[in-house]
């Protein structure tokens, strides 16, 4: 990632240098939010479905080890080879090991945010393995050398002209050709060749069923299936939190997932992988990578309910105006901001602050994760763990002392109305940030307290 050491605010500021583009990004995602609204309002039982999904996931988290063992046993009985990875490194090594075993140096991969989280492509590249992402959006960002900016819509930040330029450079389309139909047709041709020539295909997993040992992969393009059904080896990678207890629970989750994500009633393909094809190897990698730690954080564990629909991103007024890359982590937006600090508090200390706590994310979440409350709680944890900037610490201490004393408060208020120095929103060493695009309130001649003393008592 090129973002280096810049924090969310700095990256968002860069994104906001092009206001027209911000408007376009905001409108595009708002349109998807509107499609979601239209779709969910057709189901009177929507809120009950969310409640049920949330409770099923609570049950999963509270029996996760049992379900994992049940799933493993059932999957093995189905002929699936199950692997366990404690962290990203082990996950990458397992995948690489399977490729070596099968003597291949090329692989086709459908969408898997877990492999983004583990930086699998980069790892395999350093070991001489070429991975081609087959989801169109992922293929586009891969050609651009960028990570996805959205978990469901990987290249939502790219304009069609930029995609046209990439295709011109890498896939030989005519220059200045930006017609989505034409570009998609080109990618179809190029990727079909890939599907027909790869021996190993990797897919993600949307849901895994403890009861039956099967796993479900949802796509609109059909790319996961094209990869898996044409390859000799299918590797599926999943976080351990993707389990659900029974097959019948898919009824709830498949109704919620795509309506929340894009407003569609279901993805085009909801593939249930039970057993390998005759002669095929099917591997499943169960990955922890911090999830068991998050499970132990009482205030944050239910972030593990997430089914990766992306609705919180589409609705987030900050995400829409800062872009996915400003979150400098694989899973961007509100949900990413409560997941990432679990992995690295120092690196992601900025993310829980990249929110106004408006609460829209929690309202659209199909599994009712209290995202905005967790953002608030992460702020408390991060400050206590020492990840607040010194200037802010001092300012907050001064403010707390002032506000805890009526005498100091009244004195400061008098002074403040002249200098606006103690306004809560100006407590920060970036004192001028407000003025950049906003005027200060006109200070009145007297405070309410002073008026009341004169007029009422």
């Amino acid at each position, binding site marked *: 990632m090129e973002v280096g050491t810049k924090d969310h605010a700095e990256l968002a500021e860069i994104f906001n240098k092009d206001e027209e583009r911000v408007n376009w990004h905001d409108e595009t995602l708002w349109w998807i939010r509107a499609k979601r609204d239209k779709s969910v309002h057709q189901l009177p039982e929507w809120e009950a479905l969310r409640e049920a999904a949330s409770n099923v996931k609570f049950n999963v988290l509270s029996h996760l080890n049992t379900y994992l063992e049940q799933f493993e046993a059932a999957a093995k009985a189905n002929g699936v080879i199950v692997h366990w990875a404690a962290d990203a490194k082990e996950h990458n090594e397992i995948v690489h090991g399977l490729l070596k075993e099968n003597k291949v140096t090329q692989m086709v991969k459908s969408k898997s945010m877990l492999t983004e989280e583990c930086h699998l492509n980069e790892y395999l590249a350093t070991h001489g393995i070429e991975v081609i992402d087959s989801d169109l959006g992922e293929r586009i960002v891969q050609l651009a050398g960028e990570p996805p900016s959205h978990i469901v819509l990987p290249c939502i930040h790219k304009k069609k002209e930029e995609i046209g330029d990439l295709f011109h450079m890498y896939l030989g389309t005519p220059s200045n050709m930006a017609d989505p139909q034409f570009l998609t047709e080109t990618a179809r041709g190029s990727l079909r060749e890939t599907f027909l020539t790869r021996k190993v295909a990797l897919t993600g997993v949307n849901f895994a069923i403890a009861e039956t040992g099967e796993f479900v992969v949802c796509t609109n393009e059909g790319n996961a299936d094209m990869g898996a059904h044409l390859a000799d080896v299918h590797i599926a990678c999943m976080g351990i939190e993707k389990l659900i207890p029974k097959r019948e629970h898919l009824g709830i989750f498949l109704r919620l997932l795509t309506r929340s994500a894009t407003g569609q009633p279901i993805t085009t393909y909801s593939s249930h992988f039970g057993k390998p094809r005759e002669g095929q190897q099917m591997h499943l990698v169960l990955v922890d990578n911090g999830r068991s730690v998050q499970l132990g954080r009482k205030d944050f564990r239910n972030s593990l309910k997430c089914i990766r629909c992306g609705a919180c991103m589409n609705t987030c007024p900050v995400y829409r*105006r800062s872009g996915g890359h400003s979150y400098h982590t694989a899973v961007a937006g509100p949900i990413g901001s409560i997941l990432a600090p679990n992995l690295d508090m120092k690196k992601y200390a900025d993310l829980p602050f990249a929110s106004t706590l408006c609460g*829209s994310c929690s309202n659209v979440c199909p599994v009712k994760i209290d995202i905005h409350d967790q953002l608030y709680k992460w702020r*408390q944890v991060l400050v206590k763990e020492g990840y607040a900037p010194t200037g802010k610490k001092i300012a907050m201490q001064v403010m707390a002392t002032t506000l805890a004393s009526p005498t100091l408060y009244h004195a400061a208020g008098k002074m403040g109305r002249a200098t606006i120095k103690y306004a*809560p*929103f100006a407590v920060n060493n970036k004192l001028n940030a407000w003025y950049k695009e906003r005027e200060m309130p006109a200070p009145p001649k007297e405070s309410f307290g002073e008026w*009341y003393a004169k007029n009422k008592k």
Partner: protein
Amino acid sequence: MRVGLFVPCYVDQFYPGAAIATLELLEKLGVEVVYPKNQTCCGQPMANSGFEHLTGGCNRLFIDNFSGFDYIVSPSGSCVLHIREHLHDDKRPEQAKEISHKVWELTSFLTDVLKVESLPARFPHKVGVHQSCHGQRGLHLSSMTELVAPSFSKPGSLLNMVKDLELIELERKDECCGFGGTFCVVEEAVSSKMGKDRVADHLKHGAEYITGADMSCLMHMEGILKRQGSKVKVLHIAEILNAE
């Protein structure tokens, strides 16, 4: 009925008009209102910045000032939400709990406790309502566009009682204005952009005034309006409900 008037610090300092209107409106409706003069701030600015552990002083002061009232009413959804969710005192846990249950945001106090059905107010203007997030999504002052639930609006129902007032429709009924406490300076770029977009929606639909139940959002939008040289003004909802 004896009501303690809780005036948020920034309203006290910068928008005394909103507090005066709240006081006059409540008195007009026959409520005995007392303003405890040693109140300062609910502590939210620290808490939302991750410094909830520094809010002990504010909490103690709040309990000292607001014990013994039948209700505590404030013209700010955000500050009320903070008290409801976070007021605590290790030495007086019961008192803190009792107070946090007695705190009401002004418009819901009018609709739910006083059950106001008519107001003598007149305000002959086109008005846009800003749904402040904490009041709406936190205190449920209005239905939320994300949820599949019946639609309602407590501030809206009150504004409908005001003679000659015309409410305008917005494209995005309940999008955040981007104030967000310290967010407005820490994330200046996004905050300003959100404010500009919110204001633009009101301007596009012909608002002469933008109102709401939270002065902090209105302050943010006022800052944008003034910078743009707009003649459109912000007014706290109490000032409209109290207008004659």
